[in-house]
């Protein structure tokens, strides 16, 4: 009991700790909002700053960046249709259409609340169930990862739009781009054409920026320079009301649970969580608005899904010393700087520190909600800026965003090339999200599949002895079969409709 009180008080009674958590959350939101800047960069920049802080304050600041970074991506996704982070790709599906209908504040309000809800949900799981969930982490081997990645790839059916063949093509493109570079097993070069910059493969940032921003920029250049009227919004109207939250309780709870579970599984991450959450939400939603046309459940799925990964990813990190995702991998550096060795002994020997970290995370979630809510009135003014300036600003931010990660012009050129191709894809009505899904999961699926083949001595029947893997595989097969039947039926119906209209 003493440890718990000590841990809580180490945060809430220390104004410096509260201040640095606020600064970290604000920085995280800024990094998340700007395309190309990520929570990973924010944490990496702030790790040296935390050296002179107490361990709890320092880690609280970094966790604030983590939480803010996950939530900030929704702002540019909703207002500009350019995801601030790869995990905000799904938020563009319904967030941007809502903004176009004059409901930008409502969309941002839902994004803000869903991010907060997802974070708090996963925080509760982290605090009360971390020891139990640590056992789930250790149950995952190469077979489970391969099956999970395949299951994730079948989510393409949920984001394919009307034409599944186009979605498969885009998925294939994304998978291909993910395997360019060094072979994960033998280390040889694949499709790098002796280019030094391609030897490590493509980075996701220039690809996502190129896919989404360039077509949007070229389309915006055609828009007239009319002054967009901004809805007058009162702060108390920004967040959804109790009744609205109750109506959307199932998507909120289910996607938060899904995101938390994905976060608990090491080496997964927000991008997988948001696609899975969106796919599930489509089945559960009672809102009659079609997905992709401004359904708030689409925003809930994406934001609750990706933010709930935060708490989930801290479970394997704190209990086993295994990062739950790429951000927690960098966060581990922050732990090391403060001589904190994550793992089972952390809970037994330094429980007050663990409680302090939990408290800091909760405080960060509250700051994220406050900053987002108060900032929405300012954020929606962005869309009232003259189109002529907006186009230029987005181009500049896209270029910086592509350049910032590695500091090489090659990434900017990649962004331009992908963006040029994407312009044609958008005009041909190809969905872009499957390419991101393929990129995120393609390399993982291939490397885990090859490892499982090697481990089982070329005996893929080994999967039958892995119950968790079998569950993922069976669900993936069902999704593939249903998608194929649905596609054949819709093509046959479309063909018949064309034949009938020709005869007429």
């Amino acid at each position: 009991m003493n440890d718990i009180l000590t841990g809580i008080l180490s945060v809430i009674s220390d104004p410096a700790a509260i201040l640095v958590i606020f600064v970290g959350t604000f920085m995280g939101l800024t990094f998340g909002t700007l395309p190309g800047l990520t929570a990973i960069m924010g944490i990496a920049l702030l790790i040296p700053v935390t050296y002179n802080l107490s361990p709890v304050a320092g880690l609280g600041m970094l966790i604030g960046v983590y939480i803010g970074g996950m939530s900030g991506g929704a702002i540019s996704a909703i207002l500009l249709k350019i995801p601030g982070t790869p995990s905000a790709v799904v938020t563009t599906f319904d967030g941007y259409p809502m903004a176009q209908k004059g409901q930008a504040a409502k969309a941002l309000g839902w994004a803000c609340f869903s991010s907060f809800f997802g974070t708090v949900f996963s925080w509760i799981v982290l605090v009360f169930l971390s020891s139990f969930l640590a056992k789930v982490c250790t149950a995952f081997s190469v077979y489970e990862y391969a099956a999970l990645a395949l299951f994730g790839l079948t989510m393409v059916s949920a984001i394919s739009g009307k034409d599944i063949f186009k979605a498969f093509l885009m998925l294939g493109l994304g998978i291909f781009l993910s395997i360019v570079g060094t072979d994960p097993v033998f280390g040889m070069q694949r499709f790098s054409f002796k280019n030094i910059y391609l030897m490590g493969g493509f980075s996701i940032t220039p690809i996502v920026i190129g896919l989404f921003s360039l077509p949007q920029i070229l389309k915006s250049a055609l828009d007239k320079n009319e002054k967009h009227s901004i809805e007058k919004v009162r702060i108390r109207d920004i967040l959804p009301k109790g009744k609205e939250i109750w109506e959307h309780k199932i998507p909120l709870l289910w996607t938060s649970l899904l995101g938390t579970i994905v976060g608990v599984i090491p080496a997964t991450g927000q991008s997988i969580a948001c696609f899975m959450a969106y796919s599930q939400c489509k089945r559960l939603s009672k809102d009659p608005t079609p997905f992709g046309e401004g359904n708030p459940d689409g925003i809930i799925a994406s934001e609750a899904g990706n933010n709930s990964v935060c708490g989930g990813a801290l479970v394997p990190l704190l209990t086993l010393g295994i990062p739950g995702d790429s951000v927690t991998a960098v966060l581990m550096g922050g732990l090391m700087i403060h001589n904190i060795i994550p793992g089972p002994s952390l809970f037994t020997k330094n429980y007050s520190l663990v409680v302090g970290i939990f408290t800091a995370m909760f405080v960060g979630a509250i700051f994220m909600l406050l900053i987002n809510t108060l900032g929405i009135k300012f954020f929606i003014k962005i869309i009232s800026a003259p189109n002529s300036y907006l186009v230029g600003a987005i181009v500049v931010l896209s270029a910086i965003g592509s350049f910032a990660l590695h500091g090489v012009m090659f990434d900017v050129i990649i962004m331009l090339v992908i963006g040029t191709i994407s312009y044609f894809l958008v005009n041909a009505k190809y969905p872009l999200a499957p390419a991101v899904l393929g990129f995120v999961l393609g390399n993982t699926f291939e490397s885990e599949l090859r490892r499982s083949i090697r481990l089982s001595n070329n005996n893929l029947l080994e999967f039958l002895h892995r119950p968790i893997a079998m569950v993922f595989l069976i669900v993936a097969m069902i999704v593939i079969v249903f998608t194929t039947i649905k596609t054949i039926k819709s093509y046959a119906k479309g063909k018949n409709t064309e034949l009938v209209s020709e005869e007429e």
Partner: protein
Amino acid sequence: MEEKRTKVFELVVAAFFILFSSYMLYVAFTSKANMGAYAAKEMHPFAFPKIVLFLMLFFAIISFSYTLSWLIRNKKKEQGTQITSFKEKLFFYLPKKSLITYFFILVYIALWSVLGFTLSTIAYISVQTKYLERERSMKQIILIAIIIALGLTVLFSVLFRVNLPEPIVDLIF
């Protein structure tokens, strides 16, 4: 006409995927993978890429055939409404403002290594804004461009420590 525009883009994209997949398959088949003693036990490094590329080629051919047959069937219906001049056709498929904006973006990126980020950003925002909104005063545009460029330079170079290219500043200092 809008549907025809979409179908033409679909045809171009399908053709791109056919060429892309075919070329990458050629690269995959002609690449040498020295797996040594593991050849019998391991999945070939190019096996998975080949599967993905074959599937892409398959779907691209289906899309190309379907779109081409649509265009042939509907060509007769639109004969009366066809655009005849090359310039009109080009701007119908690739609007003039989009093309020129794209050209500005290419020049802007190229100028990074010559003028540096700050100067090229000022130049780009000024030219882009003036092109999209000719009525606005050039003085106001340049002033706002300077504020945006300097603001972003401070934010990214100083605060976020992103090493933006500034060859002219590097020469002076």
